[in-house]
């Protein structure tokens, strides 16, 4: 968009305390109705008055498309300074101009994120978390959004998928009375995930622990029970020296498998309701 530029020398302007994580396009400070929109490091830069422009398009022209986290930081700046209220800035429109759905659900996440520490913003920005992945945070009590719990979270530097799972577990546990532990000794996200998972799924953890791996397997087959979604599966590892050794071991397994199938079919034929 081409703008007619009017340089001003006003002294009573308020600067919006927001900086996009990418650089701002304008070298000059841009004023819109008494607010300097771009918080440039150099306060001596000239000011251009673009108050006659549409604020939504102006913000996009000034900062480029903003990420969801940057929009949350912009929301935070607006809320804290009580600038660009709903009568001036229509958030659904701004979201849409930045390629997000302008729904109430998205605005609620922006508001939630605006309460969270900037270190969390940095992590979510770096890991490119989508709004959908941040949505569970809407269920957290405000005290938990601002709590030092997130220091723990960030100190483990979880990946995007680890972070997504951790957020989901933290939110679930925070909603279940007294379930969320205050801190963790885990030094790796995977360990923390296991720790929280055990607390979140106590019944299933117990059932999984009690599930017996079929004992008939020979010693050369290392069988381990693991959870894959809603199923419990047994993983088998076989070490072998050569083709002949493998052949022998496979034959032995086939024999045991056939025996187990026979036992199972006998058991199922005894089912009472048929």
């Amino acid at each position: 968009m081409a703008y007619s530029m009017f340089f001003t020398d006003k002294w009573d302007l308020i600067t919006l305390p927001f900086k996009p994580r990418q650089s701002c396009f304008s070298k000059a400070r841009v004023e819109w109705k008494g607010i300097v929109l771009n918080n440039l490091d150099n306060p001596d830069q000239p000011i251009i008055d673009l108050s006659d422009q549409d604020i939504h398009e102006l913000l996009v022209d000034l900062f480029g498309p903003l990420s969801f986290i940057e929009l949350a930081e912009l929301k935070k700046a607006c809320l804290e300074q009580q600038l660009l209220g709903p009568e001036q800035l229509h958030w659904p429109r701004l979201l849409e101009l930045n390629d997000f759905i302008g729904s109430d659900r998205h605005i609620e996440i922006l508001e939630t994120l605006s309460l969270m520490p900037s270190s969390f913003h940095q992590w979510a920005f770096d890991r490119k978390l989508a709004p959908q992945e941040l949505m569970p945070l809407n269920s957290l009590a405000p005290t938990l959004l601002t709590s030092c719990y997130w220091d723990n979270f960030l100190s483990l530097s979880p990946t995007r998928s680890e972070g997504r799972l951790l957020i989901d577990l933290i939110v679930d546990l925070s909603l279940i009375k007294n379930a969320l532990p205050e801190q963790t000794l885990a030094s790796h996200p995977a360990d923390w995930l296991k720790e929280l998972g055990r607390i979140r799924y106590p019944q299933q953890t117990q059932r999984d622990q009690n599930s017996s791996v079929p004992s008939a397997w020979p010693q050369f087959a290392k069988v381990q029970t693991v959870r894959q979604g809603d199923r419990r599966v047994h993983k088998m590892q076989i070490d072998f020296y050569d083709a002949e050794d493998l052949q022998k071991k496979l034959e032995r397994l086939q024999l045991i498998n056939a025996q187990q199938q026979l036992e199972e079919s006998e058991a199922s034929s005894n089912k009472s309701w048929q």
Partner: protein
Amino acid sequence: MTTQDWNQKFDRIYIHQSSANTPVALRFQEIFQNKVQIINGNPPDLIKGKLSASQFLISKRQVFLTPFQGQFFKKCPGFHKGMACCNYFVLNLGFQCDMDCSYCYLQSFINSNYLTIYTNIDDALNELDSFESLKNKPLRVGTGEVIDSLSLDPLTMYSHDLIAFFKKYPNWKLEFKTKSNYVDQFLNQEHAGNVIVSWSINPPFIVDNEEHGTASFDERLLAAEKCVAHGYPISFHIDPMIWHPDWKVNYTYLVEQITQRFTPQQIPYLSVGALRYQPEQKNIMRERFGGSSLVTQAETFLSRDGKLRYDYDLRTEMFNHILNAFKSYDPLWKIFMCMETPETWINTLGHSPHREDSLKDLFQPIQKKMTQIETDAIST
């Protein structure tokens, strides 16, 4: 429900101008009087898209009566690859439910802030009339997929049109699926014995804690008894089964009540299903019900079909419990599992539903017999 009760249920009613003189719109105008506005177009604040928790709640309190322009008759969503399918078709005469179950899939599905009632039921029935080659097939049609079949029926009275229509097609079965007890309005209608009135049912403990605004357990059974007395076949869908510490005791009580008050001859089939929901539904459920609901507390895991479900072994145990309980009273009870994988069937019954004599009628594939035009129309 009195006029006053209905007025407490809804805050405002919009009626599309083109529907203003339909019987359903005239009834709404009479009951809701100054809450009604006739409009030409959509309601001024109509939202299209995913709703927030507060918008979802509002969508249950405002009604929009309008003609539906699309295809009324659709396949049941259980037609997914990998699921055992019971040949169920749905006829949607509205969108959104006035009740509020904590596990309801509409929470992540509804994309409008209005409970919508379609006023052109005649078009829906004409559409059904047009499926020539299906006329002698054992088609099962339900009206309770995205709206409860009967909870608003005292207002719409659509049951009268549907019962009269299905009299013409004795091979077809119509199913009203409800959690209400509104049956009085159609009991005296002449029917061909092919209208099944069914209740989605859970033990009183679950009804009281998770199925907000619905008829109580006893009210539903009483309504079912009334239907039986008037010659209507009935059914119960024990779905979704919800795990809780006393689940065995409570579901045993449910089975006892059904078996003591009804016979297998009065109930052509029963279905069971366990709690399941799309992962994105978890967010709105947590926002709306916090951690106090058995549904948000549920230990669910990602299933092969992308839904969150209880552990496979636990589901099987729950289904077995119900099946064994019914069969212990009478082996003639016919029970099938709703939206379950063939593995669950095999693990529970010992074989797929297609090989279960009592359920063959339901699970016999009828799609291949349809003409291509009808298949295409239905699948859109």
